[in-house]
């Protein structure tokens, strides 16, 4: 997981704040939240203090507390999501990156959440399902046979660093971490014959 994302919630309603946090948790985002029901002092001070990447703010509060420039610090690097019940107060729209109607259904709210979280690159939507490449399966075969990283690098004419990168990717794609597990996978997928293993048995014991 990447590092925690700072989120600031400024919303008078306790229920809305709790609901937001629940939905955020369900997106799978790793975050740290600061929340407040009111703005004591200025919005800018709050932002400077907590340095959030995402701000959820009640649009009425935003309307009465907005003094600043979206293109200047501390506002240019964060996303402001306005929370509204019904009508958005005049002039507030231009300060928000997004306006969320809190009366929407769960499906719609989740859809928006996932949208702006992925847009910000806060969750990497890497394709976990991709299968292993031909080169990776060469490496995997040798790992299963009990060769060390050094031996694999010599045999395949690649650097040890490259071998390690391949191994990392293999583990990520297959969800198998140990040499013994990779060996079982290789036998099941006919990358190696169990007969081949016998000769190298001693090498596979780390």
């Amino acid at each position, binding site marked *: 997981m990447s590092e925690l994302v700072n989120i600031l919630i400024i919303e008078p309603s306790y229920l809305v704040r709790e609901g937001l946090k629940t939905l955020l948790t369900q997106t799978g985002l790793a975050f740290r939240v600061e929340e407040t029901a009111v703005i004591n002092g200025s919005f800018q001070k709050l932002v400077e203090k907590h340095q959030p990447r995402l701000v959820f703010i009640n649009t009425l509060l935003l309307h009465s507390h907005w003094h600043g420039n979206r293109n200047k610090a501390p506002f240019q690097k964060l996303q402001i999501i306005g929370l509204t019940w019904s009508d958005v107060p005049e002039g507030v729209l231009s300060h928000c990156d997004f306006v969320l109607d809190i009366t929407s259904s769960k499906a719609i709210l989740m859809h928006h959440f996932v949208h702006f979280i992925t847009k910000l690159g806060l969750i990497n939507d890497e394709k976990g399902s991709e299968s292993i490449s031909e080169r990776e399966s060469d490496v995997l075969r040798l790992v299963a046979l009990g060769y060390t990283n050094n031996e694999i690098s010599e045999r395949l004419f690649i650097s040890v660093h490259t071998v390690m990168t391949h191994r990392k990717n293999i583990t990520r794609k*297959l*969800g*198998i*971490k*140990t040499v*013994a*597990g990779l060996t*079982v*996978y290789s*036998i*099941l*997928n006919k990358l190696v014959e*169990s007969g081949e293993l016998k000769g190298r048995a001693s090498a596979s014991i780390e």
Partner: protein
Amino acid sequence: MLIHQDMKMADVVHLNHHLLHVINRFGIQLGYGEKTVSQLCATHKVPLPFFLEIVNTFHDPSYFPLESLLQFKASRLIEYLQQTHSYYLEFRIPEIENYIQRLNNDSSFDEAIKVLLLDFFGQYSHELTVHINKEEQRVYPYVLALEQFLESERSDQEQLELLKAYSIHEYEEDHENVEDKLFDLKNIIIKYIPSPKDSRLLNLILHEIFELEKDLNNHQHIEDLILVPIVEKMEIELRKSTKRTK
């Protein structure tokens, strides 16, 4: 919802049935009747705060044990940890092995794959046994000796030197991850085994592995968050007492 002393033990189980084994480890067996947590703890001479902390740590992985847990005696904690060890080795592991063996009755299953699974699980249970033995034969005796020494007159110089030679941090570094193989086994069964005619037995095996994994995670959690800090506290005390005698 956290588990508290005035809940009926039966309701605790209704709330989270995974706790059954944990409750057993305190010597509290089924047939709770209408008794509450605090009543049953009293009957079985289990310190209530200790029971609550352990059960809640298991119930909610994000629950962080209270400062007060550091007041508990290491020997009591070790007693609990030993109970979980014997639960793994005497019950859970043989049970999973048993299930894997039962695959033999399914003739639609390739013989080689049965052997592969059994072998792999055999390797895992060997590693787990080695790990547990190391804890029971080296780490726990050290912790118990440390506790005993601090409770004694602290005059045995020889014992003092012996204790100073070891630190719980060596053990932390030693705490190798025995869970990787279990993790692999899950994916091998979920993703890579050729689909059998009937998955029910494999489902059962997977279910057992998930349960074991959850239990092991909690076990490690308790060691890292409770046992290690308690021992650290004792080690600091030991160093202080060394200065006093010099």
